[in-house]
């Protein structure tokens, strides 16, 4: 790739994004390994060319399984996967032209880094000269120039990770899958790699389907995030959307932190967007998100940073009494554990600004929050 062809490809990528061409589409995908339990249940997901989509979910939620079906290592039990509009059911993995970064890198230990990278080019019958050039360029992309002769075993975890990424990119696939690529790295290295993967994504314009169980990683990197739980997409949205407008108690808990209260709907506004919820003697006004009727159980979700301490009386629709149970100093913010609304683990966080301090353990205070910051979600049993 020369510089010009580099730019052409970037432009092409931008065009894809602009046109919002659908690159990958899952239609009604189901997957069962044992013929009984469905590991993936009715997956519908459409990914646009050049998009960075993350599958986010706890371990065992079916993320890897989805990637395996897309890569061609597992057949779906039902449904259809389309690549550029064409079903790929009959296409073996090697013909799908999808780059894949495996959970444990899967670098071939008996080959040098250079040979690892040259492998996909060799099996495609590319000449030695061009091979060397492209390997060199791919190594440059992940900033590992001069490492071609090392064995994978001689590299650090972060370097191995980069090699795995370079290998998945060296044959210039338009779609790259990454299965928890940073899972084995320590925090600081992970931050750095997140940035680099993001950078590569922007530079090459490839479509990336990324898998992680780390919500922060997903928030940092993704264009859109699909939150998975037990083989079901709970919510598919841009990162801000997931945080600000979680549609289920699970998503509210999984993305960021949230105080969740159990309650019963006692009134619904005429417009149908606000409801009153009785919870442990208090009646709170909340945004009606879930489908519920008067008398139904709901789960209220309130973000800790949206809670105001000792607000001016009457300022907030929702105001309750609370007792300070515990204070934790977290640097830029103060984390307060409160006894409120019948719970002893009601969390509020406030920015660490002079004047907000002065709270001590055992203080009786008032706390308040707006209707918008209190979401009434479909009730769901969970152990807290």
């Amino acid at each position: 790739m020369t510089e010009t062809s580099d730019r052409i490809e970037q432009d092409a990528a931008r065009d894809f994004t602009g046109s919002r061409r659908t690159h990958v589409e899952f239609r009604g995908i189901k997957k069962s390994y044992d013929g009984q339990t469905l590991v993936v249940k009715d997956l519908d997901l459409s990914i646009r060319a050049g998009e960075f989509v993350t599958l986010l979910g706890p371990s065992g939620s079916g993320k890897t399984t989805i990637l395996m079906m897309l890569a061609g290592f597992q057949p779906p039990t039902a449904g259809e996967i389309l690549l550029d509009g064409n079903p790929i059911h009959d296409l073996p993995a090697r013909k799908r032209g999808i780059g894949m970064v495996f959970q444990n890198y899967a670098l071939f230990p008996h080959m040098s880094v250079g040979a690892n990278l040259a492998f996909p080019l060799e099996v495609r019958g590319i000449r030695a000269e061009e091979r060397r050039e492209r390997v060199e360029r791919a190594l440059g992309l992940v900033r590992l120039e001069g490492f071609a002769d090392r064995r994978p075993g001689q590299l650090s975890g972060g370097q191995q990770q980069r090699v795995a990424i370079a290998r998945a990119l060296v044959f210039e696939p338009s779609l790259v899958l990454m299965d928890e690529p940073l899972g084995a790295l320590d925090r600081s290295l992970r931050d750095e790699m997140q940035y680099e993967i993001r950078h590569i994504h922007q530079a090459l314009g490839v479509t990336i389907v990324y898998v992680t169980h780390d919500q922060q990683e997903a928030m940092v990197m993704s264009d859109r995030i699909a939150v998975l739980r037990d083989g079901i997409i709970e919510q598919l949205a841009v990162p801000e959307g997931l945080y600000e407008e979680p549609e289920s108690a699970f998503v509210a808990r999984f993305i960021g932190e949230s105080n969740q209260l159990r309650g019963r709907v006692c009134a619904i506004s005429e417009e149908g967007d606000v409801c009153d919820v009785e919870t442990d003697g208090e009646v709170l006004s909340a945004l009606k998100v879930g489908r519920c009727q008067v008398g139904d159980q709901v789960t209220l979700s309130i973000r800790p940073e949206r809670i105001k301490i000792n607000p001016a009386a009457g300022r907030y629709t929702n105001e309750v009494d609370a007792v300070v149970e515990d204070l934790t100093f977290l640097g830029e913010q103060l984390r307060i554990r409160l006894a409120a609304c019948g719970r002893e683990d009601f969390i509020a966080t406030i920015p660490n600004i002079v004047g907000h301090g002065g709270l001590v353990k055992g203080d009786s205070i008032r706390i308040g929050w707006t209707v918008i910051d209190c979401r009434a979600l479909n009730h769901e049993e969970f152990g807290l």
Partner: protein
Amino acid sequence: MAGSLRFPVDPHRRTQLRALALVAPLVIYIGVTFIAPLGTMLTRSVYDPVVADVLPETLELLEQWDGRTLPSEAVFAAAAAEIRRAAAARSLGQVAGRVNRVQGGLRSAVTRTARELRDIEAGPWRESMTAIDSVWADPATWHAIQVTGERFTARHYANALDLQRLPDGSLAPQPVERRIYLKLFWRTLLVSTVITLLCLILGYPVAHLIARSPTGRANWLLILVLVPFWTSLLVRTTSWIVLLQTQGVLNDLLVAIGLVSDDGRVAMVYNMTGTIVAMTHVLLPFMVLPLYSVMRGIPPTYMNAAASLGATPVQAFLRVYWPQSLPGVGAGALLVFILAIGFYITPALVGGSDGQLISNMIAYHMQTSLNWGLAAALGGVLLVGVIVLYVVYERLVGVERMGLG
């Protein structure tokens, strides 16, 4: 801890001593049951004092002998005296056996001479002895005594390599009809190689299947591989006779389906085929187990990775799987090969006359011909051969990469 010790013993030294004490039983056991017999055996291949001890004076006088004419009367006198003495001490048999191996027919000659010398009181000994048996007039006889009279000798090794020492002391190949051992060594090497290859071809897919199976099934398959170990080697080998003999199951089957006629039954046992078939069967687990242990450590994602990079299954196997399984191939092949080279029972039972290997010859010399020196030399040659192969192999593959795990 260290402060509470009553005696100022270096704790590091104590650990060393404890470790030593723990391995001592094994070291002693191996020393007594393995190293010592091996050492004695190898010593026998180069050291043989019997003739030198029984005929010391004769041998000393023979040093002046020109080697072509008849020895002097003094030599005959010493020989007669020492033969009589040895006959009385019942140590003549061993001497007769040894010289007989160099020069056939001497055993009976020596025994008869000893018997008849009893009645002869005085010389001249030369006339008396040549009269008793004409072999005493033959320089070759005295030559045989000289050769067997060396305490430290290379003649067993020369024998083992089909060489003979000419009267002038130089080495020359044995006459064609007496060359047996080199051919046998080559045959043993060849058969072992064939068996190793067969084990590899048969064992590789099995090991791969087991390594790829979920743990529960893998355990069952492993048990199936190991079941043969639960039955005696003798039973396993003889059951091959049942299967392969001319009136055996396989031949019956071939006749029944009309592949061979009833009087054209195939000889599959009591020949080389029988040896190879039965030994491959017996040695197969020794190939499967190291292969399995190495393959178990190759994550299946490598094959997925290769496929995702565009490799066909064949390419993925040749470029990714096979090279990573090589340590197991090396370990299994070495194990099977070394075991095959020294295998004894199976060829003895099903090998017939042309399916015999070098170890059967060693056993023959140990048990039947009682030529322990030659048996030891044959074993020594075998040992050196194996060590050479091992070193070559180590250079090529590297033992540290070998997966005996």
